[in-house]
């Protein structure tokens, strides 16, 4: 493969060209209700060429890797249509590396019959109660190998194995339908699927409880987030804003996102990094061949860094952070998060609860989105806090806030860090990208809660 890529890259009339070839294989199993809905096996092969001429980009993606040279020439011609400035890419030392996948328990070593049997155990757990109307249970594993070369002498081969597991129980009474769900993933560890029993067993009762739970009245509350939902919060409320591609060509945003700006209290520290090993967002080299890193984003409440591709780093005069990622060969790499974490503080959950007269305690997650200025995310479960105690369940709430003021209103960070490895991130039409996020319990003052 190296010869194929390197010979196609030779002698092209461009400032910069890179070629990726991808091979992937995946298995998925899905149950709807008690019945198996889908079981399938997919294989894929494809690649792309990305070229830069005078600051303009050309990109060609394809499934057939025949005549790679012609495709490279085409991408260069496309780039030439665009470019009329100067190509700026931050320096990245050339590397040649072959990186095997991180494997704890390879799903490829588990037979289809065994995967099917293990999932059936979960079905029984999901149907624990008369009000359960239906359930959904899905499993997927994927093995992806990427071959990458560029005209600056970098060549890498990297492989990764992803495992995903989703379960949800749907309860119904009269015209009301409620569901409780869980999403989990791992990098190279099928063992995940063996560890979900306790969590899944709780879902049917939770869904039934939601049916009876009242809806919270919409408005501003003091909100305490559990570590899982706080992970989603840091991803949505701050992580996306730290991606330099949103900022680098918008002069006004560059003023707002100037390094040194205060975002929160002294106890607030946020980092991102793929170098933290064995998490879902971990890897050795990003999709521009830049070595992964650990980037401080907020240190003691102050903005100190951001996430870069080689282009955004060059244009902002900063160092590439190894955050250029793509979900597959159909897409060019863009700036993405990897593993994003609020570092633990000193407080305990009890400290955070103390003195909260009326508030909402939210745990687990359903989803989240951001617009840079505003963000929303939704809880999997919610409970009222009254006089410092977590009390009755309410319908899971959706929370919303302003990126710039919410971090200021984050006034408590506990000491109980946990990572959330479920779900996936979407940006620029590329979804889901494996990421992880994590946090200890945190407290937000004046958080907007949607409701009746």
């Amino acid at each position, binding site marked *: 493969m190296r010869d194929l890529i390197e010979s196609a890259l030779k002698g092209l009339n461009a400032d910069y060209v890179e070629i990726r070839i991808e091979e992937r294989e*995946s298995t998925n*199993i899905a149950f*709807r209700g008690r*019945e198996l809905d889908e*079981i*399938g*096996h997919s*294989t*894929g*092969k*494809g690649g792309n060429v990305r070229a830069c001429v005078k600051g*303009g*980009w050309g*990109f*060609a993606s394809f*499934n*057939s890797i025949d005549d790679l040279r012609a495709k490279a020439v*085409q991408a260069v011609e*496309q780039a030439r*249509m*665009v470019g009329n400035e100067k190509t700026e890419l931050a320096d990245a030392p050339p590397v040649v590396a072959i990186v095997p996948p991180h494997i704890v328990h390879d799903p490829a070593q588990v037979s289809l*019959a065994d995967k*099917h049997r293990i999932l059936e155990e979960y079905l029984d757990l999901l149907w624990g109660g008369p009000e359960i*109307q*239906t359930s959904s249970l899905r499993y997927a594993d994927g093995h992806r190998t990427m071959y990458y070369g560029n005209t600056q002498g970098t060549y890498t081969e990297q492989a990764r194995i992803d495992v995903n597991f989703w379960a949800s129980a*749907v309860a*119904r009474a009269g*015209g*009301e*339908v*409620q*569901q409780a769900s869980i999403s989990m993933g791992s990098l190279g560890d099928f063992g995940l699927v063996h560890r979900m029993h306790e969590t899944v067993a709780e879902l049917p009762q939770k869904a039934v409880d939601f049916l009876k739970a009242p809806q919270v009245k*919409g408005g*501003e509350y003091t909100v305490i987030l559990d570590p899982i939902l706080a992970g989603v919060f840091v991803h949505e409320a701050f992580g996306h804003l730290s991606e330099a591609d949103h900022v680098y060509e*918008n002069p*006004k*945003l560059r003023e*707002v996102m100037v390094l040194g700006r205060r975002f929160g209290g002294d106890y607030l520290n946020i980092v991102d990094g793929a170098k933290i090993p064995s998490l879902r967002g971990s890897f050795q080299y990003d999709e521009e061949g830049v070595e992964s890193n650990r980037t401080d984003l907020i240190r003691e409440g102050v903005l100190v860094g951001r996430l870069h591709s080689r282009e955004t780093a060059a244009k902002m005069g900063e160092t590439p952070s190894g955050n250029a990622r793509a979900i597959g060969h159909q897409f060019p790499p863009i700036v993405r998060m990897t593993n994003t974490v609020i570092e633990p503080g000193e407080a305990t959950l009890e400290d955070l609860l103390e003195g909260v007269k009326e508030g909402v305690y939210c745990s687990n997650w*359903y*989803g*989240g989105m951001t*617009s*840079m*200025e*505003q*963000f*929303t995310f*939704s809880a999997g479960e919610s409970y009222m806090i009254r006089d410092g105690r977590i009390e009755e369940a309410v*319908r*899971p709430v*959706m929370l*919303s806030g*302003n*990126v*710039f003021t919410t971090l200021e209103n984050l006034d408590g960070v506990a000491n109980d860090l946990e990572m959330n490895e479920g779900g996936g991130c979407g940006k620029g039409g590329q979804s889901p990208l494996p990421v992880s996020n994590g946090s200890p319990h945190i407290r937000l003052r*004046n958080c*907007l809660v*949607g*409701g*009746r």
Partner: protein
Amino acid sequence: MREEEVLALAQQHADQAEVFSVSSRSIPVSYEANRLKSVDTRDSSGMALRIIKDGRIGFSSTTDMEDTEGLVGRAVEMLPFGARAHMDFPESSEYTHVPTYDEGTAALESASLVEVGGALIEKLHADFPDVVWEGRVSQGVSTTRLLNSRGLVAEETSSSVGLGVEGTLVRDTDMLFVFGRASSCKPDLETNEVIAALTRKLQWAERVASAPTGQVPVIFTPQAVAGLLLGPLLAGFNGRNIVQQSSPLIEKLGSRILDPRITVWDDPTNPFVPGSRTFDDEGVPATRFPLVQEGVIANFLYDLQTAGQAGATTTGSAHRGLASQPGPGASVIIIDPGDTTFAEMIAGHEKALVVESFLGAGQGNILGGDFSANVLLGYAVEKGEVTGRVKDTMVAGNVYAILEALGALGSEPEWVGGSLQIPALCCNGVSVSSKG
């Protein structure tokens, strides 16, 4: 062809077989920060095989067109674990051709897309120099082939051209986002309409106003209906949710549960509309039928398998990607218009909220028809006039409840994103909460 080879090979191992293939090419040109950033070509192709043996379904897919034996082998390997088949693949039908291919669109090259995009971005940048514009213009041609062991052979090619543009206006930490979209099968994009809509949004958003809160009338623009209400509404009609009995509409077929002014069609037979098609992704003829007729639940959306499970007939609503089996879904949703103009809706209220786009739509319990979202772009109405853009505002409600108690139905339907024809709605019973 490869598809015939796969079908012949698969028939040796199965009672029934079906091969689905797609090949497509698209040329997107993208703009960043008011200027051309990238010119792309994206080619993709692949095949999927479904087989039925002893009442069970096997499935596999690949993007490697040479791998015919592997494709068949993996589908056969899945059979012992496969889902129970509640269907047979269909025989060939007499199709009424729905045109979705235009030679002019197919012939578009990147240079002409750059011309369209460049003119649009240049005009927007000149009119609104403080706004940073991003955009994309793309052309695409896609061919679908479907073959099965009962002799069905169907092939369709469609073309499309689309544009999307996004403006960001930053004033310190106050940010405004506006979006415009258009698409068509023909090379007839109405860029002037996109510019006019963006101009109206930017004018209304110029000032910031405080949002009315509580249970206030909420006016949904066509874009907002598509963005927030359609998802939870259509989930109730999806054959999968009917079969699972997780739709609130089961046992409601034939009942009037929405306002009698509401009629909703799925009409994939509209010529040259993106999403229209001659046959669905299982080879069943596509037809026009109502989901809601004058407030009465009229039909659900089925593919072959869910129809078999529900004891119903497929509605030709199968949709699929390459790597997954078909499932039912809507193609081209048309909501019949009413008799209130958008201007009348606004003029008729002492206090109201107009909503345009959302952040976080589709989260939460959509199965039950609930919606909840942050208002990304919306305006306050006072004394019958738009006073400015609202911020830090959330809306929540239940789609069935608000369509039962509908306030007014718009008389000026718009094509949203090319495949949805929707009027504005004025709804009661939406909760609005806001910060300070």
